[in-house]
């Protein structure tokens, strides 16, 4: 009996030892694999497109790569959750552990400041044909410290106002007549009195939706020059106050009651269900409209440039950033050059609902709505950078601005405090 138990205990010990050894070998094997990417045969790219349009677009991009470069294996790894929160956390960890991927998806512009010291140089790739082919804002915003650091894959438009056609018709509002913020407010008021629908759908679970609305209103009431002055921290405080005041009027009177507990998807759903008339969003919102059956552009939903921003195209870019100390420096550059090519931009954008940053892409494959957006993009007087999506302000200020919105402007709406903190944050 005693012997039995002793043997058992020893067996357990041996088994545990064996497991431990196997585990160590396994770990050693993993790290070995991880280091093996330097041969140039594989290129590891991290991105955050895990669902819906994004996933389809990423898949299409990956298969376009396989066709173009069958000799280099693409490890296209999606990291989903919390917008891009998890993706950014993983990238932060890997960069600070000196284990960068060959490339990762992220915003260019001021957002690149965050990666100070770990950015590679893509100047050779840009000089080799990309420079002239993309709009000048794209090439400017991909530069940091005098060198190119990223290549854009596509652009979303931010100054959009989408509407449900039947709801605005029920109220007798013609969205095309709205050419100023005050006209928009009048229209919202008409909808409130004439129908039982929500005049404006808004999601406030996270502060970025309100921040981008404030940005759009600022562009509308202040104009392009003032907007640029504000985001560059060169004054314009009275214009910011005006924008907050106008936004307060909208948020206090015309949005859905449950705004604070819903996210963007649910708010967008209200347009599709016919519960709400308008929504301000980037044109990723249109992707959801397109995927809904019997919900056609110009028949069931419509688009209007955000009132007062006609002739402008507020820029948003998705790009692939190229880190230094790259595990696959050459294959990584091949990937970046591919991202900037016609083929990749068509493959990605037609599913993502964004538009190519190249100026020489034919519109046939993009459907009526995106074709119009491409026309607007090409003919825009100015293309101001988006405030809420990393292009206009450095990441730390962006986080602080979201804090200002969350603390001072998510109900109760404190115009004075929000204005002061907003301006001091940008100028700080």
């Amino acid at each position, binding site marked *: 009996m005693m012997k039995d138990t002793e043997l058992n205990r020893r067996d357990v010990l041996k088994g545990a030892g064996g497991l431990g050894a196997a585990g160590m070998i396994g770990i050693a094997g993993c790290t070995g694999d991880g280091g093996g990417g330097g041969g140039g045969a594989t290129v590891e790219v991290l991105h955050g497109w895990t669902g819906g349009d994004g996933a389809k677009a990423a898949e299409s991009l990956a298969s376009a790569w396989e066709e173009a470069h069958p000799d280099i294996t693409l490890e296209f790894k999606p990291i989903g959750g919390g917008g891009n929160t998890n993706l950014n956390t993983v990238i932060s960890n890997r960069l600070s552990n000196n284990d960068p991927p060959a490339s990762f998806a992220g915003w260019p512009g001021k957002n690149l400041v965050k990666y100070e010291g770990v950015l590679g140089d893509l100047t050779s790739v840009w000089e080799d044909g990309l420079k002239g082919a993309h709009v000048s804002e794209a090439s400017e915003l991909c530069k940091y410290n005098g060198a190119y650091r990223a290549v854009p894959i596509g652009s979303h438009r931010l100054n959009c106002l989408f509407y449900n056609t039947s709801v605005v018709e029920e109220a007798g509002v013609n969205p095309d007549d709205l050419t100023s913020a005050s006209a928009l407010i009048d229209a919202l008021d008409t909808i409130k009195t004439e129908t039982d629908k929500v005049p404006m759908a808004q999601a406030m679970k996270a502060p970025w939706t309100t921040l981008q609305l404030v940005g759009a209103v600022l562009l509308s009431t202040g104009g392009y020059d003032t907007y640029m002055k504000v985001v560059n921290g060169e004054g314009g405080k009275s214009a910011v106050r005006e924008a907050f005041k106008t936004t307060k009027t909208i948020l206090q009177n015309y949005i859905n009651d449950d705004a604070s507990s819903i996210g963007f998807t649910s708010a967008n759903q209200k347009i599709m269900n016919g519960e709400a008339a308008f929504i301000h969003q980037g044109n990723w919102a249109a992707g959801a409209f397109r995927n809904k059956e019997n919900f056609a552009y110009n028949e069931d939903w419509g688009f209007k440039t955000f009132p007062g921003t006609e002739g402008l195209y507020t820029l948003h870019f998705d790009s692939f950033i190229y880190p230094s100390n790259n595990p696959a420096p050459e294959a990584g550059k091949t990937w970046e050059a591919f991202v900037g090519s016609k083929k990749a931009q068509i493959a990605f954008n037609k599913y993502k609902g964004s538009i190519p940053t190249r100026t020489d892409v034919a519109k046939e494959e993009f459907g009526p709505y995106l074709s119009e957006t491409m026309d607007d993009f090409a003919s825009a007087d100015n293309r101001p950078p988006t405030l809420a999506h990393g292009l206009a302000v450095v990441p730390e200020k962006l986080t602080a601005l979201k*804090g200002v919105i969350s603390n001072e402007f998510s109900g109760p709406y404190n115009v004075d405090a929000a204005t002061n903190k907003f301006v001091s944050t940008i100028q700080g």
Partner: protein
Amino acid sequence: MRRFFDRLTQARSGRSSHRSSEDDADARDAMADGQRPATDGGVPTGAGTGDGTGSDATPTDEAGALGRGLARLDDRFGEDFVESSPFWLPPFLLMGFFVYGAIAWNVLISLTDYEGFGNADYSQLDFEMYARAFGDPTVVQAAINTFVLLIAFTGICLVLGMLIAILVDRNVRFDNTLRTIYLLPMSLSFVVTAQFWLWMYDYNNGIVNQLLGVVNLGPYNFIGNPRLVLGAVVFALVWQFSGYAMVVYLAALRAIPSEHFEAAKVDGASIPRMYWRVIVPQLKGATISAAVVLMVFALKAFDFLYSLVGGYRPPNGADILATKMVREAYQNTNWAYGSAIAVLLFLMALGVIGPYLAHQYRNDNL
């Protein structure tokens, strides 16, 4: 180590009390020949090497010094210190390195100015980050929220848990079913409970506002109103964890001999008086251990808030140190500042655990 193997082999061959210098030398000799005394396989092989082969081997000075050193260690820390080391040393080193080493490193980083993706500069250490944290109103507010959450959540959980435990203990009908129902929410993950409390708190369709509407209250904007949101979060967490407090109390109540109840009854105490004077004082141990676990859960409310909004920024009015810390570290790459906030959070946790450890130590439980 050698003596460990040596003793082990002696124990195997049933000669555990008998030990001679000859055996020592033999074992050493066997090691020198590259035959480590086998300790596996269940066959007492090691002792077999002791028969004559190495009786003339003389231990080197070095080995003698080692032996004396090990003996001194044994004298200092107890007889089995060296022999038992293969069992406690690896986990001790792993814990020391990965837990306490990591904490120490975190403290070290918080003294630097580390940000971005460069390397930390350890040459200039100061308390600048702590000064910044104490001067930052959002950190102060987050600390206050963390504290309020901790106290309110733990207090309500304990009181509620005790009341339910007393009810269940009084053999009400379906007491087993009730116990399961109360405990069940604890088995759910924060991700699930956060999502469904988000739905329940919804302004238009949420069940909470619907129920309040029946008695002509509300609707309230639980998530959007900064004065309500922390209370709403505490309520949701209490719902999830009061069952745990109940189970701990129930176990303690069942351990109280029924004579105590009877004696109180004989003395003519009313039921509330009996519980207040006789029973509740005996639940002190249960209260302390439940309180510690609940407080640790409260400090981990990060998961709940993260799932609630799907990001690192909780609704206005519910920001806690944990979320603030992650925002600073991962969104702004202010590693040093994030570490300083982490240290503050760690000190709060120590403040919770410390008195408990002291209490246990005084009662000779540690």
